[in-house]
């Protein structure tokens, strides 16, 4: 049963998922098919997260199960997913801030929803964003921040993107625990969000995906 693995991962049944994957690999099945099932399972996980059926522990645990299975398949999931990407996104936590929980969920959700995500990590200076946008030709930029000092860092980052003549080419979203319309207006971002699903909705809207 091809769906048994998808189901086991999506239902967070680690032992079962590992057992099925091992059996299928042992029977000589193409590891890429296993990884493709893993991707399908992650889509279900993402949907359940969006529906508030799953939360952060479930998301983290599903990633843990998947990486175990990817490891067994001796191939990276990223390589397997040669499918068409909806668009490119450069993301990072802005300068001065090292919080990454929210950003990492957004990276995860954008990835499983078909975006090519370039994660610059935390405490990212404005010029690093600019360089990455030039290099990847990404059309979406996502700035994350938890501290109140991030308001200014976001503003400075967006200014740097404008100064580099890239503002017309990208749509910029900001997000974080204390982010609201006030901060969006202040930073001159195009939109803001306070959860990972709104990042996906915005990104899909911006690349014209249905």
């Amino acid at each position: 049963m091809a769906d048994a693995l998808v189901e086991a991962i999506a239902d967070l049944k680690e032992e079962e998922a590992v057992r099925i994957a091992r059996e299928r690999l042992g029977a000589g099945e193409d590891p890429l098919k296993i990884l493709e099932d893993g991707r399908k399972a992650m889509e279900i996980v993402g949907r359940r997260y969006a529906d508030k059926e799953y939360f952060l522990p479930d998301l983290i645990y599903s990633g843990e199960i998947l990486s175990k299975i990817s490891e067994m398949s001796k191939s990276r999931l990223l390589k397997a997913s040669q499918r068409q990407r909806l668009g490119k996104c450069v993301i990072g936590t802005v300068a001065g801030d090292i919080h990454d929980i929210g950003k990492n969920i957004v990276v995860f959700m954008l990835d499983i929803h078909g975006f090519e995500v370039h994660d610059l990590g935390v405490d990212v200076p404005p010029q690093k964003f600019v360089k990455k946008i030039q290099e990847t030709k990404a059309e979406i930029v996502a700035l994350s921040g938890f501290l109140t000092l991030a308001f200014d860092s976001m503003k400075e980052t967006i200014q740097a993107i404008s100064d580099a003549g890239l503002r017309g080419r990208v749509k910029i979203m900001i997000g974080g625990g204390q982010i609201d319309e006030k901060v969006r207006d202040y930073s001159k971002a195009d939109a803001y969000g306070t959860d990972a699903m709104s990042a996906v909705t915005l990104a899909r809207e911006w690349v014209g995906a249905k």
Partner: protein
Amino acid sequence: MSGEKSPEQLYEEREKRIGDAIRLKVPDRVPVLLGFGYFPAKYAGITCEAAYYDPAKWRWASRKTVLDFEPDFYRAAIGAFSGLALEALNTKQMKWPGHGVPPDHCHQFVEGEYMKENEYDALLSDPSDFAVRTYLPRVFGSLAPFEKLPPLKTLSFGSATTLISQLATPGFAEAFDLLLRAANEAAKWSSAASSFDDEMASLGFPCHARALSQAPFDVVSDYLRGMRGAMIDMYRQPDKLIQVCEMLLPMLVERASADASKGASGRVFIPLHRGADGFMSLKQFETFYWPTLKRLILALVERGLTPSPFFEGDYTTRLEHLGELPKGRILCHFDVTDMSRAKEVLGDRLCVMGNVPSSLLQIGTVREVKDYCKRLIDVAGKDGGFIMTHRSSIDEANPANIKAMIDFTKEYGVYD
């Protein structure tokens, strides 16, 4: 007008106002808390670094902040400590202004798996041994030689000579030197900083709390396993995770009770991190987070103390659980939780405090701040049981907006 009253009278008046609100009696007006964090740096024109390296200057800026804004009570920067002591210990768990983060930024916590997934049994069977030989060497690089100690229980009752010869090795001598240096620096820093609350009391200003505690789950998540580790443990070893929370509970109660006895108010600040709506499901909250947090709060109340949890993030779906807490004995500070819903669910049981957005205080106008405060007082302040304050940090706030929040509350928040 306030100039006619003595600081003692003002202190009593403010404590009564706060106490009335907490006990759900209608006070003379809505009290207001200023949890200023690193705000004094920007306000007084110094850097946050002073909180760690120049306690006298930091104290001056903090005092100026309280005296200029005159809140009913205040909360000073949490986490500030002697920078030189932290350096001597080679502290891994924190970056602080001037050391890892720029001098004008706030400190930031460096979370990690300082306890590994297979170490629950070691912690449960002998927590002191685990702390000394495993945990402290990981969070303080200078104490790394402690890892080489034999199990502490083998050293007790008669075999002290083993310990003494162990301590003579070069690594230990250096570790003890650094520990002593850290202790001396900490003592210097404390003597300049710690009596701040006494001084402010003598000037008429109560502090929010002299004791701090945490939810047992947060102790595991923040300090021991890291968020990721703790969340995976919810699946892979849920019983052990709960056992550790149970083990931590009496330790936390004891510690908070001892600290709270230093101040007359008996308030205990409990900043909460990982129990919010966005972090875990209601079911997970009910399994891993709430049971030991609730018992912590109840145990503190039983000792005559007043727990003051800060529900960081959104707790709107958890409000019914908070309603299980004893009436009029808790001060609940909310962050982004819907305040009208909080008032509706908890209004006849618990005092609610909150929640002017940081963004508004930082980049909004005075008019907008006043409008927000007016709505809060109208809705959450109805019939008492409400204290005005901001959400989380106001480190970067515009002083004019802080002033507006406090002065407007004093003017509009008067009960007839």
